[in-house]
Structures are given as C-alpha cells and as structure tokens.
C-alpha cells in the first residue's frame, strides 16, 4: 500500500470539509513541524511526540468537517494536539508502561544543550547551562497539561496571549493565570 502523493497547496481560506486526501497531505506538510515541536516540548519523548503528531493529523482528518473558519488551521491543529497530549497522559496504561519501558537517552546522541551553547564559552558555564536546561525540561514535564501548553506556546512558539487563548479555547486571563503559575513553579524549582 503506497502513501498518497502530495499534490496541492492548501490555503487557510479553503474549506476543510471539502479537503480531499491529497489536499490534506499538503496541509500536514505545512504544519507538521510546528505541531511536532509543540508536542515534543510537552511530552519530551521523541517517539511519543512522533506518534502523537500522527494522531493529531489523523484526528484532524477525521473531524475536518468540524473545522470552523473562525480560527486558522494552525490554531485548530494546536488545539487538537494539546487534547491529544492530555488524553495521552490521562491514559493509566500509558503511565504504567511509561515507568517500565522508558528508554534512557542515547548516550551517543549529541547533546542539544552543547549544540546551543556558545562554542567559546567556558566548560563550567556549558555544564551549568546543561544542568539548568535539564532541570527546566524536568520541571516543565511536571506542570499540568494546560500550564505546559501555555508555557510552550508562549516561550517556544512565541505566540501572543490572544493566539494562545484561541488555541487553548479559553480566555486571555486564563492563559495569563496558567503562565503565572507555570513560571512561579519554574522559578521555585530551577536554581
């Protein structure tokens, strides 16, 4: 069975209900990196992030008729992705197996912190930066899904508060509240 080739470009103005399979593939191409990045920031595990990104687009295709033009496709997909992460974490079975089968990070893989760090910086600072980033990852992973989503959309995706509120389906005030709580937790936990 072969995958359907990508043939067309989808614009934000197109009606999702009329999207055929090829159009949808083109939409996946346009948004998959952003959705994958968001999910990876929220779940941290690359395999889970890949699977949940796929789930997000499969869900989007199944529910494409429910898409309303009041929001952009990217915003709609972001909302689906956040819900996918929430459902994923609600799964008791996943929690159980997570503890048993979580793979340790590949020790041969390049450390992203080192890649980000200034090559000329002194090793002690790189070490400290790595520690802080590692701690940040861990603290963010323990935030509630909504706090994590707000935090990631704000600081990784650099979205406006209004856009975050739209993506999360809540008021701007609620987003501010999630962000304030997330930042307070991070400040408390990260040295």
């Amino acid at each position: 069975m072969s995958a359907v080739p990508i043939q067309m470009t989808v614009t934000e103005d197109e009606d999702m209900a009329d999207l055929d399979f090829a159009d949808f593939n083109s939409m996946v191409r346009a948004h998959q990196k952003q959705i994958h990045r968001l999910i990876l920031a929220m779940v941290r595990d690359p395999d889970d992030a890949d699977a949940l990104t796929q789930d997000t687009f499969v869900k989007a295709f199944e529910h494409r008729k429910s898409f309303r033009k009041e929001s952009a496709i990217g915003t709609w997909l972001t909302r689906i992705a956040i819900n996918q992460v929430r459902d994923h974490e609600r799964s008791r079975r996943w929690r159980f197996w997570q503890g048993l089968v979580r793979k340790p990070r590949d020790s041969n893989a390049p450390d992203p912190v080192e890649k980000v760090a200034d090559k000329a910086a002194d090793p002690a600072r790189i070490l400290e930066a790595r520690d802080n980033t590692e701690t940040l990852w861990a603290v963010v992973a323990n935030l509630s899904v909504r706090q994590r989503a707000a935090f990631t959309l704000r600081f990784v995706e650099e979205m406006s508060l209004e856009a975050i509120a739209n993506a999360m389906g809540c008021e701007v005030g609620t987003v501010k509240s999630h962000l304030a709580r997330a930042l307070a937790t991070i400040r408390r936990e990260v040295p």
Partner: protein
Amino acid sequence: MDRLFDHDLRRFADNVRLAADRDDAFWHRQREAISLRLEPRQQRHKTLAWTAASAVTALLVAGFLVLFGPGAHGPSVPQVAEVDPDDQLIAEIEVAVAQELPSALEPAGDLFW
C-alpha cells in the same frame, strides 16, 4: 522577568527547537505514516458511500416499480364470474319443468303410483 531567568527560558526554547529539528527524511516518513493510517479510513469511507448509493438506488428502483410497475393499480383481486340473475332463474325453471312432479310434492307422488 530577571535577565538570568529570561536567559534560561531562551536556552530552553532553543533546546526544544534543536531537539525537534529533524531531517527531511523524517518529515517525509511521518507524512507517509499519516497517509497510511488515513488510507483504510478513506477506503472505508468510499465503501460506505458506495453501499449507501447502492441502497438508495435499490430503494428508488423499488419505489418506481411500486408506483409505475405492472401491479401499480392496486392489488389484484381474483375475478369472480358474474351470473345474470335472469339466466339463473331460467335455468332453475328448466330444471323444475323437467321434473315430473315439483320437488315439494315428490312424497305425495308415491301415494298414487
């Protein structure tokens, strides 16, 4: 937000972006995987559409046959041969005339013969 904390957040964001950075082959594989997962749904959708279309067509044909087919003018009633009452009366008279005695007097006829 103090400068150091801001710096940590930026570093975290850069770290996430780097961790999410993949080559084109990865994105291509991911699109293929999504397509493969959607294909059975598409197939099922088509099958359902065909089934629905066939059912509607069958219903339309059945409806057409009911409305305009050979039995369209009501249910067929077995035909009963109509008998003319006059003919029936004549037949009865002929039977009566052919008898030597009216059937009502037959017992009395035994007395004379």
